[in-house]
């Protein structure tokens, strides 16, 4: 092990418990020594274990796969598990919970509730003609390119970072968000889904859907999975506007 001391970093966290009668939003600064390869996952776990066992935040996979740990880091929403402290030369990180979602406590927000509602709203599942598939028989063939295209859009991890980045969300609380539109784009490509453009129009063909987007591009800028959100939103908008 290297004996060289790491630099001192400051992690400033907005703490607030909306379920407490006495809690008020306030910042707490934690100073700790940086270790090689330290991510916000490592730093926050250390803070909880050594300085503040009361600090609330969410991690599951700690590998950028599950989308649990979205938070606002120095003004930008990001996955905390993939945020390397070394990328912040000033050594100070200010952490806030993501906006647009219900606050649970401190850095923890209720993305699950929001995403379930979104999924139900855009009917985020295969809508077929109602026939049961005989699973003992050969599977339906899918062109490998189409399967790849579907997969590209299926990579969304519902971290909520696009939602927290979205200007329209701030003005329209019922906005379906980039994640919802991406979901529609995903099922539109999937040959198993028998819905038509008209069916999708019914779901998102209004100002709370595809026509509400202001094309500010922050969703795509911040998406940790690099999904082509703006392209897909523009494509859907052209396709759906042509229907009316």
């Amino acid at each position, binding site marked *: 092990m290297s004996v060289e001391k790491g630099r001192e970093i400051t992690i400033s966290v907005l703490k607030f418990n909306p379920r407490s009668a006495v809690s008020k939003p306030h910042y707490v600064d934690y100073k700790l020594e940086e270790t090689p390869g330290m991510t916000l996952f490592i730093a926050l776990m250390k803070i909880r274990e050594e300085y503040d066992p009361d600090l609330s935040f969410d991690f599951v*996979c700690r590998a950028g*796969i599950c989308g*649990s740990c979205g938070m606002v880091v120095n003004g930008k929403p990001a996955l905390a598990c993939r945020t390397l402290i070394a990328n912040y030369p000033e050594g100070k990180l200010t952490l806030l919970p993501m906006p647009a979602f219900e606050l649970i406590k401190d850095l923890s927000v209720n993305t699950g509730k929001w*995403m*379930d509602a979104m999924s139900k709203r855009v009917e985020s599942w*295969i809508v077929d003609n109602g026939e049961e598939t005989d699973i*003992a028989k050969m599977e339906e063939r*899918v062109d490998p390119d189409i*399967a790849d295209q579907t997969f590209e859009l299926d990579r969304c991890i*519902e971290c909520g970072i696009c939602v927290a980045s979205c200007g329209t969300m701030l003005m329209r609380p019922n906005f379906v968000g980039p994640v919802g539109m991406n979901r529609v784009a995903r099922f539109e490509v999937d040959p198993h889904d028998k819905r038509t453009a008209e069916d999708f129009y019914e779901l998102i063909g209004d100002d709370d859907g595809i026509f509400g987007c202001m094309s500010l591009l922050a969703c795509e800028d911040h998406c940790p999975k690099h999904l082509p959100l703006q392209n897909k939103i523009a494509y859907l908008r052209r396709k759906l506007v042509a229907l009316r």
Partner: protein
Amino acid sequence: MKINYCDALVIGGGLAGLRAGVAAQKKGLSTIVLSLVPVKRSHSAAAQGGMQASLGNSKMSDGDNEDLHFADTVKGSDWGCDQDVARMFVHTAPKAIRELASWGVPWTRVREGSREAVINAKKTTITEDADRHGLIMSRDFGGTKKWRTCYTADATGHTMLFGVANEALKHDVDIRDRKEALSLIHEDGRCYGSIVRDLITGELEAYVAKGTCIATGGYGRVFKQTTNAVICEGIGAAIALETGVATLGNMEAVQFHPTPIVPSGILLTEGCRGDGGILRDVDGHRFMPDYEPEKKELASRDVVSRRMIEHIRNGKGVPSPYGDHIWLDISILGREHIEKNLRDVQEICQIFNGIDPADEGKKGWAPVLPMQHYSMGGIRTKPTGESQNLSGLFACGEAACWDMHGFNRLGGNSVSETVVAGMIIGNYFADYCLANDVTIPTATVQKALDKQDAYLDEILAYNGTEDIFRIKNRMQNLMDQKVGIFRDGTGLAEAVDELEELLKKTKQINVKSKERVGNPELEEAYRVPRMLKVALCVAKGGRERTESRGAHYREDYLKRDDANWLNRTLTSWPSEDDTQPTVTYEDLDIMTMEMPPAFRGYGAKGMIIENELSAKRQEEVDTLKEKMEAEGKDRHEIQDALMPFSLPMNYKEKNERAGDK
């Protein structure tokens, strides 16, 4: 007291739990799935490499079938598995994958024509037939005869999880997240549901159901170095253990994966090696062929992990601030392949280690070291998934010891098990719920809830000097050091003693904040004692088992001992005041096996203490096979004569294949 009634209660919202939930809901039962986290964040999402199912679509998997998958699984298990269950599994897996395809999982598909692949570090051309174009593709994984692992790039678990979760939403399964089961409600040998804590409000609620199915995943977090998500703490197994009635099976069977990246422990999928990646030592030398000339990097995981550590012990590890490691080289696969099929692997290397694994030569090599990965042990069940002792309690997925993995599981068989067990056990579970009523007085429910309520108050009132985080860290380090890849009697005995001490110390802690809501330290304080009980089952089971089988490797007992240890370890916790589990055994019956114990085909030869019944049964099997073949019977009829098995629904139907004659 708030009581939530439903027909079918599923605890755990990963692939297994959600699929079981769909099965119950589809049979018309009101079904609730409880999950610690939003279900699409479950650890199932982390499965990168793929799902084994013997479709036999692509060139390299042509001719695959259930028999080959069965044989690989039994060998992989080092003959520790339940062969009935393995048969049920391999027969349903092709159906599961086809069902998932119809639910929208965008499996990577076969493309007709030629492509380059790396096999045994050499570029090879594979040509796919035109009549297979568009069928589900598969890749190579360790310990399998054919390329059988179906995949979506390296995000298989993610796409499967979203497919199944979306299907659950479609069928209106009542999914409730941020809910933690604290105990099971049970009386007179029957389970009636669970006492549950809402992780947002802190409120305790009772869930009363006709049947309860635990699908909470593995217990990797009792170890320090693990590929598991932070929620994989084995609590589902622990609350089953704490009933004092249900038992846990084979808890000492813990798998270590060869290639998590150092130091974060994030997994680089077996797909890396399956696609042709190789392991190198400090000199850049590819060492696996020296140890395993036949299967090389693609021997089973237990074997590869041990060979790596062995090679490091021989002084060939790469020194680093985090200890010695081995290199994983996938650069030989070419940038194009990596950027398409191993993109998450590339991202993990880039983000967490600043390496681009597509860079040629040493620059692109990733530091890897075996770490805890999978829990073969879990809640012991019958082939229907029901607990052997506690009626109405079912378990499926990694939380269960349904036991198709025995003492080592093959890559691609776990994510496959989640949905296959979800289908099979989910249906048996639903049938149980249809056939049984709830007959429990609310006073019994109230008592179970009051007990958990009082326990939380008791924890907050502890006034000792110990720290729950330190106890947890000590447990994790101890498990790594003494209950790891290489084990011996002395280390295991020390581990059992110290874990017992740590369990006692969990009552001598002091929780700083006395809040009942939003208090992470309180949550640790009630979880860690349960984790310690699980850890004690692992360590004590390991201490008693004086042989090496699959992933359980004793340096003081190097041979697999079929004469004395062809059995399953059962651990129970009969009294709350106990500080150690009670260990008993369940024998495996060679004379009913379709495949009696033999050499696995990889690892060292001659390391078996034979059971005399193996040869006897083998002769029986051979004679019957020969006779039936002479009579012109097909492989299905022969299999049925050797070891008949049953399945729910129409899952017993034959699987159609492109290669059918």
